[in-house]
């Protein structure tokens, strides 16, 4: 198992380098703006552009730039500097990470809890009105754009601009270590919005998975033992039905860590997603590279963790 993990991690590193190479190429092939020209402003003077290119290291060949970048990462864990603020990308990312982690992990707790609860209830009462109502709601939530949902809850429940003043509104986020209570209240609405769509997906997923599992022979065995229905469903049924959820959970969290830009924007939460988005709009490559590197790393790690969790959850799975 350890060897397997090490091999996966090494392969992950190779994958990251490939991702970075791909990014390097994409950002120079796509018709995005030239950062030197952006910075040179309206009175474009070749000498100034050349100076800026030199400043930013853009005058070197593409492979040379890539080599310097990769070397920086592996030797010093240096992800470069923003073309604009000159801030170290590593610092920016670590500065933004807590907000995104708070948002995504808290959201994950909510979507897991509600998604699984609704999924179980729906599966146990498949075909009932309750089931149809919750699956219908799920369909709406899945298709509701997060951005729109975010605006909606803000205009209804935000303490500053809402119809009823309940929860702290946009821009109220503070760090967990600064003020835990404010951290919590400021994240309630973002969590709900982040969780809504995913909870709906999970509810549907678990419903299907649980209905299938409940038809298994070992569920019949569990019932024949004289176990209560509650124990049959929650211990024997859920234990198996949860497996597909674990797979998507890992990937969902990982992907969201890099792409929660819409919720971060609506609620004005300074996270990774927004950092990445703004960097893209400004052709601030070092930040784009850094954030995508992190996002890719999350995905790779999530995959490894999911696989390990799989081996833990399903004793029949063994890696070598």
């Amino acid at each position, binding site marked *: 198992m350890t060897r397997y993990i090490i091999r996966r991690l090494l392969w*992950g590193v190779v*994958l990251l380098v490939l*991702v970075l190479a791909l990014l390097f190429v*994409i950002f120079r092939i*796509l*018709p*995005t*703006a030239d950062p030197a*020209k*952006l*910075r*040179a*402003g*309206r*009175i*474009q003077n*070749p000498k*100034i*552009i050349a100076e*800026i290119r*030199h*400043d930013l290291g853009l005058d070197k060949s593409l492979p040379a730039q890539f080599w310097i970048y990769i070397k920086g990462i592996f030797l010093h864990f240096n992800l470069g500097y923003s073309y*604009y*603020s*000159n*801030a170290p990308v590593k*610092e*920016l990312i670590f*500065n*933004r990470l807590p907000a995104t982690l708070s948002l995504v992990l808290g959201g994950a707790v909510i979507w897991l809890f509600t998604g699984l609860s609704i999924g179980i209830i729906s599966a146990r009462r498949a075909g009932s009105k309750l089931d149809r109502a919750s699956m219908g709601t799920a369909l709406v939530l899945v298709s509701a754009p997060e*951005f729109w949902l*975010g*605006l909606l809850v803000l205009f209804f429940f935000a303490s*500053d*601009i809402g119809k009823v003043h309940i929860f702290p*509104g*946009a*821009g109220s986020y503070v760090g967990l270590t600064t003020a835990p209570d404010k951290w919590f209240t400021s994240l309630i609405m973002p969590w709900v919005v982040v969780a809504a769509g995913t909870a709906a997906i999970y509810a549907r997923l678990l419903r299907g998975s649980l209905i299938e599992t409940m038809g298994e022979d070992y569920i019949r065995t569990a019932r024949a033992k004289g176990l209560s229905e509650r124990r049959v469903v929650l211990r024997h049924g859920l234990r198996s039905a949860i497996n597909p959820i674990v797979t998507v959970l890992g*990937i969902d969290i990982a*992907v969201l860590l890099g*792409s929660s830009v819409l919720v*971060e*924007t*609506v*609620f*004005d939460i*300074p996270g990774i997603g*927004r950092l*990445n*988005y*703004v960097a*893209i*709009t*400004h052709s601030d490559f070092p930040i*784009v590279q850094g954030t*995508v590197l992190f*996002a*890719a790393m999350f*995905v790779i790690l999530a995959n*490894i963790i999911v696989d390990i969790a799989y081996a833990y959850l399903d004793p029949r799975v063994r890696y070598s």
Partner: protein
Amino acid sequence: MRALRTILLTVLAAAAMTALAACGSSSSSSSSSSGTASSGSSGLPAGVKNPVDESLTGGKHGGVLNDVQSEDFEHLDPGQAYFQLDYQITNSTQRALYSYKPNTFSQTTPDLAEGEPKLSDGNKLITINIRKGVHFSPPVNREVTAADVEYAIDRVANPNVANPYYLGYLEAVEGMKSSKGGQIPGVKATGKYTLQIKLTEPSAPIVVASMVLPYSAPVPKEYAAKFDAKKPSEYANYQVASGPYMLKNNSAGKILGIGYQPGKSATLVRNPNWKASTDFRPAYLNQINIAIGGDANVIGRQVLEGSDMVQSDAPAAPIVKLAVQQHPSQLTISAGGGAGTRYIAINNSYGPFKNVNLRKALWAATDREELDRLRGGKTVADVMTHFLWNGIAGFEESGGFTGPKVDYNEHPQGDMAVAEKYMKLAGYPSGKYTGSETLQVVGDSSAPANNVAEAVNSTLEKLGFKTKLNLVEHTVMYSKYCGVVSEKIDVCPNVGWIADFGDPQAVLDVPFNGNLIVQNGTNSNWGLVNHPKINAAMEAASKVVGVKARGEAWAKIDEELVNEAVAVPYQWAKEPYIESKDVEGINDYWNSGTFDYSFTSLK
């Protein structure tokens, strides 16, 4: 493998976002593009404030202002700043030699300079005395001297600073053009408080006019040199202030992560070494907290319904509407001044539009009111009738709002009969263009600009032109197509210009002076306008001294530009800003109407 697939998707998503993002990024009009402004006398909705009428005195001292803005700053180094949001910071923290009071864009006020500059040697020598008793903020603390301004000007040519405009305005400073960093021979502190600038050409007027830009604010060499030695310079993140406010820093002077968290927040606190007696700024506020990011629809409502808040970038269209209807006293619309223009650039150097009559025909045929309506209507636009604008010297002389009395300009809704007349004059007796070539039209893909581009394209078709319309993202339009000689683009319907400072030369020179065209590179002369007579007139006018005289000289150039129909102007932009009801917001007319922290107060 699952991981690989997911990662590829992530990367592709990032790439796709680039494209999307680019579409939506038109508002970062920092460098290339437009601006907005409108003319003071153009009608504003009832109860809405106009920056030129605001009272600059009598504010209440104290309090903390909360500023929200969707966009981040770009470069806070006074030697690099070139963006209205950046100016909002530099204007309150850095004292340039000359500055504008909030309600003007043509009259400068001596700021760090003690008085007007002395020009001698046939406009080739500038002598400026600087004010005594101005001190740098901590950790430098000492008094500002002329040597600090000398270093500030020296460093614009330092490749590590790479000031974006110095070759445009300071090219004539002795030694500037060939500088590779280090001391510029033409800039000398000849005394503790006296600065002399020697020029190789008699262009002192434009050099002096440019001194409102933040590059002329003092920088202490003994402190800054080590940061400027970095590639690129790190002075932005350690800068010291000379104005009433400073970006919050630590004892080592570090700002990054303390007074400025990129993409997140910035904090301005009082500069403890600033003395009110040395400055014209009242500096009522104790502190300004700037929150960066958020959705314009949300932060707009927060400002309108909250307290102690302003939004320093443009509010979303629904918010402007809401403000006009329900909170007019919290809305300021800045018309003209530092706001900009939009016009249709037409290629004067290549293709059918070398023919002046075809250019006039397009001007006549264009329904400029419709284009303005597409951009948001009268609240944000006045129909543009010539190339100078309100608040700039020469505007009235060149026609004011109604503009020159030429038939192709007299019908803002467009007039096909007049257009036909010019088509015939151009040699197309049917009144329609009959050439076989296809016009290359390149526009901005994001709304509302794309709608304008479509409308212009259909006007071209009505005139008989075959066209190929290509809509690309805003920055791509500027960096790869419009203004690139080799691309041979015929029409760019979405270009615009804001002036770097309130001088008519800053309005007309770069976009229309053929002598500035570079063959390989991007030009801001998007129509490649190159008429020797006009070029020569600009050369002469640049040397004229005095606001009124310069206005008259450039007004004549404006008339020539209209006579040649070098482009089809359609929008003098107006810029709306919102504040909370308990904020007495003062807006900088010269800076598109953004808030001036040094004059704004809480009620």
